[in-house]
């Protein structure tokens, strides 16, 4: 079986013009993720975990190395060299990204946030299908019905996260990037996230997740990597 994602010699640094300094993000990273696998990356803050995720999603521009992704649309594609249009397509149809921060349009209700995500990824499904899927996923991820018509700005961390996950999952991504989704959550919310990840895993979703919390990762990941100061150390 071919890897869905293969990172080879990835390096990323940030040059800050004002300060005249270069900050190392990550160096010489090699990781492979097989279809259906959940690979976890651990490490302290600033160790470079997020830089890897953001390089895959192209929020960061890598400086060296390759990120090979086996795309349904484009075949084997090096994401470091993909065009902006290709990345927009992949973000829309194939690669999901969930962080602890909610990325929702202002003045958009929780319901519409998920609905728009459904319509965006599957416009041919039609409004009726998108509504049914939206309601199914909001229920599935336990977002109380009386919150559906509200703006998510006022939601708790756990509620925002569940909304984030619903909006990402409605696209049925082939690859899901989880960027510290449990940071700043209380224990009961963390448990819910764990349940959600287990559900996604059972559904065959391929995931690359980064976490602070080693306890949280226990028994959840198929493979685990540890990072320190930009390098993969284990």
């Amino acid at each position, binding site marked *: 079986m071919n890897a869905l994602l293969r990172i080879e010699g990835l390096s990323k640094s940030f*040059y800050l*013009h004002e300060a005249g300094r270069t900050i190392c993000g990550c160096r010489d990273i090699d990781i492979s993720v097989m279809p259906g696998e959940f690979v976890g990356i651990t490490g302290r803050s600033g160790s470079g975990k997020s830089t890897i995720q953001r390089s895959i999603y192209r929020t960061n*521009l890598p400086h060296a190395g390759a990120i090979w992704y086996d795309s349904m*649309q484009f075949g084997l594609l090096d994401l470091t060299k993909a065009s902006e249009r290709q990345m*927009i397509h992949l973000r829309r*149809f194939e690669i999901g990204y969930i962080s602890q921060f909610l990325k929702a349009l202002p003045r958009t209700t929780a319901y519409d946030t998920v609905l*728009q995500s459904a319509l965006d990824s599957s416009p041919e*499904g039609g409004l009726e299908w998108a509504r049914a899927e939206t309601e199914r996923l909001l229920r599935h991820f336990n977002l109380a019905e009386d919150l559906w018509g509200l703006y998510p700005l006022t939601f708790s961390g756990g509620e925002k996260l569940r909304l984030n996950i619903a909006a990402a999952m409605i696209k049925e991504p082939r690859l899901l990037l989880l960027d510290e989704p449990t940071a700043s959550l209380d224990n009961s919310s963390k448990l819910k996230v764990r349940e959600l990840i287990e559900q996604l895993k059972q559904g065959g979703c391929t995931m690359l997740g980064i976490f602070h919390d080693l306890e949280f990762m226990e028994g959840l990941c198929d493979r685990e990597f540890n990072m320190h100061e930009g390098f993969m150390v284990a």
Partner: protein
Amino acid sequence: MRRATSTSATLEAPLLKVRELTCSFGPGCSYCADRDAILERNMCPRCGTIHALRQVSLDVYPGEIIGIVGESGSGKSTLMRCICFDQQPSSGSVTTGLVENGTVDLLACSPQQKRAIRNTIFGMVYQNPWLGLRMDFSALSNIAEQMIASGNRKVEEMRTRGLSLLEQVNIPLRRASDPPREFSGGMQQRVQIAKALSNNPPILLLDEVTTGLDLSVQAKVLDLILRLRRDLDVSMVVVSHDLAVIRMLAQRTSVMLDGKVIEQGLTDQILEDPQERYTQQLVHSLL
């Protein structure tokens, strides 16, 4: 039920291609004719020519919003004016697959052809509504004027369309007969947008449309722009010096400085991993 088309679709061709657009004000000289000449910002140190645009290239794809950011005087508005024929550039080309399959440089078309293209393919919304509206005509007449310019002569059809557009941009229909000079800034911008949409143009050019509006009015205009893109699938070029506006609207962004595009990329990449010194300054200035 799942998507049927996404896997088989190929990426579409650009709807609008701008290539090497250059616009200079002044006589020019052998020094500044060199594209690598070092200028004092955008002015030639030898002959004083202002190079408002220097080899600017841009692709706009169907249904996308592309953002152009940069400080005042960076060339953003000149770029928009050149694309919609308000300003004749010194060199470069603009093509669209909607005219002769993209084989014709729109800038080389006759004035009549340009008028027709301007009325049917481009919709332009200016920062200053006084440039886009006839302030003494009614809101409805402003829309009708645009439709007449594209050859429509059916009064009832124009009236129905005009009212429908005003409704779409949330102008109370009881104000349809009032002249825009009696409207607030936000309402004037929305009438401009309705006018720009009157002939169903596939490309909207929006030049600093929220500048000078108070926050709540700005929010209404931004929501309207997003709704129009979603409902009508219109492609848009949005010029703004406000990164928050670009962050909300645009998928891709070009950064301009001194007449040049210095950086372009996915909007979140530009905002979170800016490469150029100026872009980093701009992002760090974001409140």
